[in-house]
């Protein structure tokens, strides 16, 4: 467990303790209210009957049953991103990995219960949607200290050693889940109430990651007179950027079950804890493409590979009467891997803990922390340096605080 996660759990526990202490300062519950004062003398008019207090808690079921709607707003911070763009080797003792940034956009978590009549349990609907989009740009002109991580090794970078001085990358991670489950109270006491739920769920997960690597400021010799015409355009010699993109799309459905427990600390305050596990079988599409570029020399019908130093030497050998520079060109090395509809078993863990405050009637507010983990919902397949296939599975994780409201009709 990471330090930040431990800190978040500690914060949740602290929030619970604060709620406990707050509840201790609240007036006694309705059932223990002090008795009314001694009635006035008989000669006076009898006082008006006290206005009945609005009952706190869930109303009784209607003939058709009942309905509860809950929505949580939370900032799911993406964990286990595995979006590494480059290795920065800027002369320090240890190279550093440049990864995509990680924001936590606010998302909604919807839940609805249809409570069956005659306490036969509930049908529970749940919808989650997470989306994380990130962009990064580094233009460190002339500082060829960024090693390409997303392209196929071999011809990447200015000198075909993978080093560039600029990059732009973007990543998108999307997860959508729908659950339809049957829920029923498993145990109940004055202080504790537990309910289990079991049912069907579908999960869709998409991962897109692409990067463009630039050689912005190559140390070319001068393209000046007398060796080059005054109108010479050197732009065809500028290095073509390298590019790589990978995607992974998973879609599956399966079964899950969970347990929600409420610890009643006070008529208005409870601690909620929830755990849900799921196993989902589906199919996954994985695509990868890489495009790296290198210099060549065209001599008649023949093509010779050039590294950047060769290019510099040829430009330096250019003169007013001979221009071998015109024979320099660039070629691309393209690699691609695509797997379609591969069967995949993925797993889910949904863990939450919070404090619920009953506000009015059945309106309740909940504050807490949620951890959501989707195991093996993404994968990567790309060629290695020697042409071998490198495969890797990814786990998507979301964690964040939530604030929710629920109301039972």
């Amino acid at each position, binding site marked *: 467990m990471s330090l930040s996660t431990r800190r978040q759990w500690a914060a949740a526990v602290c929030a619970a303790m604060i709620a406990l202490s707050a509840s201790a300062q609240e007036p006694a519950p309705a059932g223990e209210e002090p008795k009314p004062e001694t009635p006035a003398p008989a000669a006076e008019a009898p006082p008006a009957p006290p206005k009945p207090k609005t009952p706190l808690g869930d109303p009784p079921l209607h003939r058709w049953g009942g309905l509860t709607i809950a929505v949580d707003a939370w900032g799911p911070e993406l964990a286990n991103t595995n979006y590494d763009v480059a290795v920065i080797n800027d002369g320090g003792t240890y190279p550093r990995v440049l990864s995509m940034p990680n924001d936590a956009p606010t998302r909604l978590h919807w839940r609805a219960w249809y409570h069956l009549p005659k306490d036969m349990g509930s049908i529970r609907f749940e919808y989650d949607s997470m989306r994380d989009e990130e962009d990064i740009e580094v233009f460190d*002109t*002339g500082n060829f200290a960024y090693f390409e991580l997303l392209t196929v090794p071999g011809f990447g970078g200015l000198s075909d050693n993978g080093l560039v001085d600029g990059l732009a990358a973007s990543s998108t991670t999307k997860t959508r889940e729908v659950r339809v489950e049957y829920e029923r109270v498993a145990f109940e006491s004055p202080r504790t109430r537990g309910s289990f739920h079991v049912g069907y769920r579908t999960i869709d997960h998409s991962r897109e990651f692409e990067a463009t690597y630039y050689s912005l400021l190559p*140390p070319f010799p*001068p393209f000046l007179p*007398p060796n080059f015409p005054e109108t010479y355009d050197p732009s065809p010699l500028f290095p073509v950027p390298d590019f790589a993109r990978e995607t992974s799309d998973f879609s599956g459905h399966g079964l899950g079950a969970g347990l929600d427990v409420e610890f009643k600390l006070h008529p208005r305050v409870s601690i909620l804890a929830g755990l849900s596990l799921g196993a989902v079988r589906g199919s996954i599409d994985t695509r990868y493409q890489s495009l790296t570029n290198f210099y060549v020399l065209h001599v008649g019908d023949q093509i010779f590979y050039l590294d950047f130093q060769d290019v510099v030497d040829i430009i330096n050998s250019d003169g*007013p009467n001979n221009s071998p520079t015109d024979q320099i060109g660039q070629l691309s090395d393209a690699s691609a891997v695509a797997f379609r509809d591969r069967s995949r078993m993925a797993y889910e863990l949904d863990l939450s803990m919070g404090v619920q405050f009953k506000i009015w009637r059945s309106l309740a507010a909940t504050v807490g922390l949620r951890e959501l983990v989707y195991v093996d919902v993404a994968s990567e397949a790309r060629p290695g340096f020697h042409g071998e296939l490198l495969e890797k599975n990814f786990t998507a994780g979301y964690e964040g605080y939530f604030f929710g409201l629920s109301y039972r009709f």
Partner: protein
Amino acid sequence: MRRGWFVFAVLLAAGFAASCDSSQPSVGGSSTAAVQIDARANVDLYDCYDRFLGTTFDRVVCTGPAPGSLTNRPVPWRYSFRVILVHGGQPNNFEIVGNSISAQNGNTFPTFGDVARFDVTTASAPIRLDEPPYNFQNPRRVSQGHQDFFIGTIEFTDGRGIRGPIPLPVVNILGITSSGPGVSPRYTIELSSGDSLIVEAAKQVRGQGPDIFPPNIEPSLLLGARLFVNGAETTPNAGTVESSSADGAGISFNYISD
């Protein structure tokens, strides 16, 4: 007691508010880069004199080359020059801030209008006896990169005869002249943090320049550059600061501002 806690809380909040001041000074800033170009070559030494007709100055007269005097000295060679500024964080925003390529600067400055500095070193030379009606004063030994070799009448002692004065180039870099013939003028560029500078220069071919080199000897004409940032000489990040001796060769280097 409660008031004390209240005052403490107010002070704490004020402290936090002050620490969150967003008007903190930003990191980095601007700097001034300056580039100077010099040229050196293997040249011979000549003995020069001021020739007088009576008491009236007539001309500068040089004889040589002095035997075994081949040496490496600055020469006022012409070159083409270009400075490109790449603004920080905008790799596609190239700005040509200095350019002596006439087709690219609207013919406002000639392509080989830039001239490196002269050699100003002088040494003692033997006294030259009077040749009536002339007398010779101020004997000095100078190189072929010295102004005297341009403005003087050269009496070659190796059988090449006599050469009259040749045009004296004006030392400058993109029109910026120096305080003296032996001082390299500097071209300055204002840089912001993160800016990159590309400096290019190339020698004029020998066949198009003045005939100031010894015959039948490779002069090894080299073009060199020095970069100064805020007055201090600085090593560029990449590229070459000295050309090869090949005819028409040049230099190109870049510097990335902190």
